[in-house]
C-alpha cells in the first residue's frame, strides 16, 4: 500500500468532472473539501491558488498535483479527480491536464506533506498507471488500481 492509497477513500474520488478551466476546477475542488471535511471553501481555494503562483503544479503528461498547507487542519486530506476534458494548466510540457491529485496538509506536517507529494508523483509517473486511470470505469476500479500500485514495478 502506498501513502496516497492510505489517504483516499471512495468519497474522495471524482471521475469525469465537467470543468473547462483551472480556476473553475480549483473552485470545485475547494467546495468538495468544504463538503467532505468542513473546511472553508474560500480559504482552500485561495491557498491552492497561492501555491500555483509559485509555479504550476502540473507535472506533464496530463497530470497535476495541486497542494496547500492549511492552518487548523488536523490531518492531511486529499482528492483524486479526473476531468472530462483536458484543461490548460501551464504544464512544463504545455499539454492540458485531466488527472489531478489534490492534497491539503496541516501547517506543521512537512515530512508528511513531502511523503504524500512524492507518493502521488511516483504513482502518476508510471505511464501504465496513467493509462489505466484514464480508462477506469468507476470509483471502485480506481481505488483498486491505486491500492494495488506499489513501487516494486
Amino acid at each position: 500500500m502506498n501513502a496516497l492509497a492510505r489517504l483516499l477513500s471512495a468519497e474522495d474520488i471524482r471521475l469525469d468532472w465537467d470543468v473547462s478551466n483551472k480556476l473553475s476546477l480549483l473552485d470545485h475542488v475547494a467546495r468538495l473539501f468544504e463538503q467532505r471535511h468542513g473546511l472553508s471553501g474560500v480559504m482552500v481555494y485561495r491557498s491552492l491558488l497561492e501555491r500555483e503562483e509559485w509555479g504550476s503544479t502540473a507535472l506533464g503528461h496530463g497530470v497535476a498535483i495541486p497542494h496547500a498547507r492549511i492552518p487548523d487542519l488536523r490531518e492531511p486530506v486529499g482528492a483524486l479527480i479526473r476531468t472530462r476534458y483536458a484543461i490548460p494548466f501551464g504544464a512544463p510540457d504545455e499539454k492540458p491536464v485531466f488527472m489531478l491529485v489534490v492534497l491539503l496538509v496541516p501547517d506543521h506536517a512537512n515530512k508528511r506533506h513531502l511523503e504524500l507529494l512524492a507518493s502521488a508523483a511516483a504513482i502518476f509517473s508510471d505511464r501504465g498507471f496513467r493509462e489505466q486511470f484514464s480508462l477506469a470505469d468507476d470509483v471502485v476500479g480506481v481505488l483498486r488500481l491505486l491500492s494495488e500500485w506499489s513501487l516494486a514495478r
Partner: protein
Amino acid sequence: MKENVLSAERKVNILTEALPFIQGFHGKTFVIHCSGDVLTDTALQLEFGCDIALLQSVGIHLVIVHGGALQITQMLKRMGIYSVFHNSIRVTDAATMEVVDMVLGKLNQDVVGLINQQGGRAVGLCGQDGLFIYAKKLVLPAEGEMRGTIDLGLVGEIERIDPEIIKLYHTRNFVPVVVPIGVGEEGESYNLDAATVAARLAEVLQAEKLISLTDLPGILDQNGKLISSITVNEIEGLFASGGLSEAIHKKIGAALEAVRHGVRSVHVVDGRCPNALLLELLTSEGSGTLIRSDAGPHFFADSLRYLRANVIEDFDGPAFTFDEDGPR
C-alpha cells in the same frame, strides 16, 4: 470489419480528446525543420503531407524548412563529384552550388506538392525570394596548429532574416516551405544549414514552437530512456556530465539558442515514425522530447520553496530526495 478501422465512437473520442490541444494552438506559429533524410520514404511522405495539412486546417501558422544533404550527396555522386567535409560542413564550390540549388529546388517542389495533395496550401520559398534570408560567407578558423582560415566556398552563415514575406503568406493561410539558401550582398547564393535557418526563423517570428523532425527518437537519458521534457539548463548539465553526445549536442545547438531567445519550446521528434508529429503535439503522452526554457515550472523545487516560505518552525530539509526530472 477490419481491425484497423476505427469505430465512429472511437473517432469521436479521439477528436474530443484532441480538442483542448488544438484550441491551445490556434493562431500560433510553428516552425518545422524537416531533415532531408526523413523525406525519402514514400509512406512517410504521405503521412507528412497529411499531418501538415491537418495542422494547417486547425489554424496553426506553419513554416517548413527542409534540408537535403542526403539527396545532394546522392546527386553529386551520380555526377561523379565527391564532396569534402569540414566538421560535417560540405565545402561548396561553384559547381557544387549549382547542384545544391537544383536538388533543393526539386525537393522543395516535392514537399510543396505533398502538402497540397493532402488538402493543404503550401508555397515554396528560398532566401533569394523577397530578400528574405541575408547571408555572408562562413569563415572557419583553421584547426590545430594551422594558421589562417578554411575556405568552405559558398557555405554561408545567416546575417539577417526579414520575416515580412512569411507573415504575408500567413495572413492568406499559406504554408511557406523554405529552402535553406541565403543571398549575399552581390546577389550570390549561399548554402545554409537547414536546422540553423529553422531556429533563427523561429526566433525572428517569435514562434510558439520549433519542431525538429530528425532521425533521433528524441533525447535519451543516461539509461537510454526517452526524456519527455527537459529545460535548456538541464540539457547543458546532461551534456557536461557526459550524458549527451557531442554530436547530438551540436545537432540541437541552434534549437537551444532559439529557446534562449524567446521561442517557447522545441520538440525533437522522430521523423521516421509515421504520425510522430501528431502524437507529440496532440496527445498527453507525446512521442519525442520537449525542450523548454528554465523559466517555467519546476514542481519539486517550487514545492520545497513553497514549504520553506510558509514554515513557522525550522524545516530541516527533505527526508527524501526527489528525482528532479519528475514523471517520464
